[in-house]
């Protein structure tokens, strides 16, 4: 191949104004030559480098994305890079799960004095990307091995003993006016009961799998007055997180906790929380199968065993089915923004029309917004009419938050949420 025909990669670099940008300036002052492929976008701080920007760069056809700022301890704004590092640690895990080629995204710390490092990083990254060739695998379809289907169970209805007690308690709460509305389970799914006599419609059985806390955010329910909400120990986790995010105050709702015997969902097999911890009142007795000691996210393990290109093909096929109905968002207790990022039209971060790019952008944003927040209720996967297993992506971030920062959503009401906090010792091995 002659030089003229050789592939020249397109490289987008997001750099902070105070260290890396100045480092690149220094490379210039010192006349340190490097390949001309890189296009620098100057931002004040790595803190400003949002994950959407990395996705955007790939969308416009970048073959490589460079992200760089001040070394830890040197951020002009003291902590922007610590926050950024935390997000990158999590975001990379998500990208990896999606099968995005991590060699195409390089994170570095380059100080204002490191003109030479800038030269080296850009040179090596450009050479490496040139060798990798155009990023054709991005959002590409292709063959991939079978992934075990999500375990679904549809056993017959089995009522639990506490059902009558539940009706009694709810009837009383309504009759006495303690609450104006009860969000509970009916024979055919969630019901909202406002009259004491209707408490008879409430059920408590092995089909009560919905996470009812998602209804608390709804305007039409809020307008009815103080609500009682029926929660299982697993649902309660979302209340813990919602409280941290100022979306829920204990005084606003009466929480009826149900000691749980399992609702025949896959997650129930390794559920260890059988009794609600924070409820105003707890009914029933805990029972059910002994929890398996080690949770085995089979599907996730199978997915991660594939090479990245096959993972990508898997997700492309999944996401191509997405019709952007946003049912997943609607049922998620943790999705409460009144104006979701996809609904923002100036500028458009995520293409609202169903398209491969836009669908990926939506699913990446959805999953990442739930990083360290998703409580694993599985509602999203259940709600999706296209049968996309959204929970699989959530698992990746759930594991990442736990592994890297020891954080598990919904467990410790005092623990600082993963996003928007940091420690000086957050460790990673990928930032050069």
């Amino acid at each position, binding site marked *: 191949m002659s030089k003229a025909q050789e592939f020249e990669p397109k490289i987008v670099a997001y750099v902070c104004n105070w260290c890396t940008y100045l480092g690149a*300036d220094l490379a210039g002052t010192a006349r340190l030559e490097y390949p001309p492929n890189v296009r620098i976008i100057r931002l*004040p701080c790595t803190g400003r480098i949002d994950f959407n920007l990395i996705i955007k760069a790939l969308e416009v056809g970048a073959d490589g994305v460079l992200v760089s700022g001040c070394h830890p301890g040197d951020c*002009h704004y003291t902590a922007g890079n610590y926050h*950024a590092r935390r997000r990158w640690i999590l975001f990379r895990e998500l990208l990896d799960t999606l099968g995005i080629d991590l060699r195409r995204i390089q994170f570095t710390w380059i100080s204002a004095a490191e003109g030479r490092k800038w030269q080296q990083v850009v040179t090596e990254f450009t050479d490496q990307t040139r060798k990798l060739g155009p990023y054709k695998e991005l959002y590409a379809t292709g063959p991939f091995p079978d992934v075990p289907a999500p375990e679904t169970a549809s056993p017959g209805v089995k009522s639990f003993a506490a059902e009558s007690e539940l009706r009694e308690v709810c009837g009383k709460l309504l009759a006495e006016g303690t609450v104006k509305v009860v969000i509970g389970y009916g024979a055919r799914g969630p019901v909202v009961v406002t009259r004491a006599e209707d408490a008879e419609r409430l059920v408590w059985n092995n089909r009560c799998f919905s996470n009812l806390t998602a209804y608390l955010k709804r305007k039409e329910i809020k307008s009815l007055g103080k609500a009682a909400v029926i929660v299982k120990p697993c649902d309660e986790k979302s209340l813990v997180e919602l409280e941290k995010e100022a979306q829920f105050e204990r005084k606003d709702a009466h929480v009826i906790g149900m000691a749980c015997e399992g609702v025949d969902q896959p997650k129930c097999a390794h559920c260890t929380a059988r009794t609600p911890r924070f409820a105003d009142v707890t009914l029933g007795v805990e029972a059910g199968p002994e929890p398996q000691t080690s949770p085995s996210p089979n599907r996730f393990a199978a997915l991660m065993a594939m090479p990245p290109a096959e993972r990508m093909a898997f997700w492309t096929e999944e996401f191509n089915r997405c019709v952007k109905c946003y049912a997943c968002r609607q049922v998620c207790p943790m999705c409460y923004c009144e*104006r979701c990022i996809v609904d923002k039209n100036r500028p458009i971060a995520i293409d609202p029309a169903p398209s491969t790019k836009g669908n990926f952008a939506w699913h990446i944003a959805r999953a990442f917004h739930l990083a360290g927040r998703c409580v694993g209720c599985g509602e999203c996967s259940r709600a999706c009419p296209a049968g996309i297993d959204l929970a699989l992506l959530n698992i990746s971030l759930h594991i990442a938050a736990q592994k890297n920062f020891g954080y598990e959503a919904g467990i410790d009401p005092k623990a600082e949420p993963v996003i928007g906090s940091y420690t000086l010792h957050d460790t990673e091995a990928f930032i050069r």
Partner: protein
Amino acid sequence: MSRIGVFTCWCGENIARTVDVDEVAKRVAELPGVRCSLNYKYMCSDPGQAIVREKIATEKLDGVVVASCSPHMHLKTFRKAAQAAGLNPYLVEMANIREQCSWVHHDRVQATAKAFEIIRLSVEKARNDAALQPIRVPVTRRALVIGGGVAGIQAALDIADAGHEVVMVEREPSIGGKMAGLSETFPTLDCSQCILTPRMVEVGQHPRIKLYSYSEVEKVEGFVGNFRITIRQKARYVDVSKCTGCGECWIICPLKRNPSEFDYGMGMRPAIYIPFPQAVPARPVIDKSQCAKLIRNGCGLCEKKCKAEAINFKDEDRLVEEAVGAVVVATGYKLYSIAKSQPKATLAGYGEYGYGKYKDVIDSLQFERLVSASGPTGGVLKRPSDGAIPKSVVFISCVGSRDNAKGLPYCSKICCMYTAKHTMLYKHKVHDGQAHVFYMDIRAGGKGYDEFVRRAIEQDGAQYYRGRVSKITQEGGKLVVRGADTLAGMPVTIEADLVVLAAAMRPADGIEELAQKLNIGCDEFGFLLESHPKLRPVETNTAGIFIAGACHSPKDIPEAVAQASAAASKVQVMLAADELTREPEIAAINEQTCAACFTCIRTCPYHAIDRAELRTPRGAFIKNTARVNPGLCMGCGTCVSVCPSKSADLQGFTDQQVYAMVESLA
């Protein structure tokens, strides 16, 4: 913006040698939104700037892109030029085609192509620029100084001498801090009180300094330029405005055997007292835990004796409010409390040194009082147990400091110096005495410091052992100190009459609570955090709040004073005008769409975002929201990245602008 002027610079040969500037200018002229595109030899020169100004006027430009060097070099220059021509300066962008293009590439074709893309990217940004107005914050031109040690005194005097009012809050009955109790100071061995007390008097008499002694900061509201401080004046039982400081009361008080705080328990004081003769204000205070009148309605002698009728047994705490524009925190330090029991779970004490058990094992500040001419022994060194003159004194340095096991891994920095000083002061008082020092390393960096330590060893004959002391026991009238000399590789046992422990420096009590009120950070040991260790050493992350002295880290007097003057000069800059002008490239939140998750509040390094309520013009509640305080935001954009609803955005680097730039690369 649709009428953008692009000005490509040759930078003499610097750009033009590798970038074909004519070609670039020609291609740029075709870009959407570009009204005119030209090139010139030196855009930053006067004629170059004149071209920009002229084109802004003649072409009615609504945006400017200068393609030349780094924005760090000349963005300000071109913004000023634009402003002079009547264009909002924030509608000017720079395309860096020198440092990041012509200087780092040789191939003319490639460099020209890249330069064009860099300019296109900048044009896209400019097309999405918005005119921004500098932010103006009104400023109350007064300052608060918390803590009246040498650092606080220095800061207060500097600020007041510059013409601004200062409010000083000191929680003890007198200002002066630790320095007031030191005997003589290294490295000059001048008398501490002789240099400090005139400064204290100056504070007390300064027409622009309002001193609240025996007071504490109760509450802090507001933000830079506009703080409202609530001060708690603790009940003193003496009306300071009536009292003449004659001393009749403390002479008559029968309860004279209370350990003196100022002497660290080495001396005694009455229940109504001034901490030391040179106190400022020289007004007594009654210790309500000791006074017989206040405890059981007895005595009352002082009230009868006071001709000024200044004693008021009905006195109560009072809250007063002061408005200030800036705050200097100078709350200093205290010594680590050596003994086995410790105030915090993270700390551990020394049981093996017998501190608190043997009267003649004392800490370094107690030693200062024992050798001070104004001290309880009148400057004659007598040991606490029996008043005997100690003939052999062991000094142990690094007690607590640099010891992970004690929870204090840091170096207290000044102990090497004052321990050397102590051996000298001792030798000067007890000519036939022998000083022994156990040390880990001698850290004597500073002007004349190493020479000072040498003098202690070489002239005054202090015996230094590099090693730790493992145990101190009392045998007969002696303290038996067992340690090691690691250089000689031998155990050492010394029979001492007095042992002085150089305890680690820790931040003052209550620092965490104070930091919380002020919304500033502490490190894990409680020392206050500076905003940037190199570039903003006296600022904190809360605008308008500065730090000085040993509250920041262990420091000696020269350093504390230097830092205080630095903080004072920062305050003076702030108070120089009625208004503060700040860069408008800061965050803004769309309050309609904000989900009120408050992630941004948790994230912002400058505590610049608050919870707020969105209300109708008539005051009806609509929703909760986060709100940026433009007086505090520094424009890092960290909030933008964590905002799930994309309600936070950064002016000057909006999503709209950044996306436009990236998309120009498609």
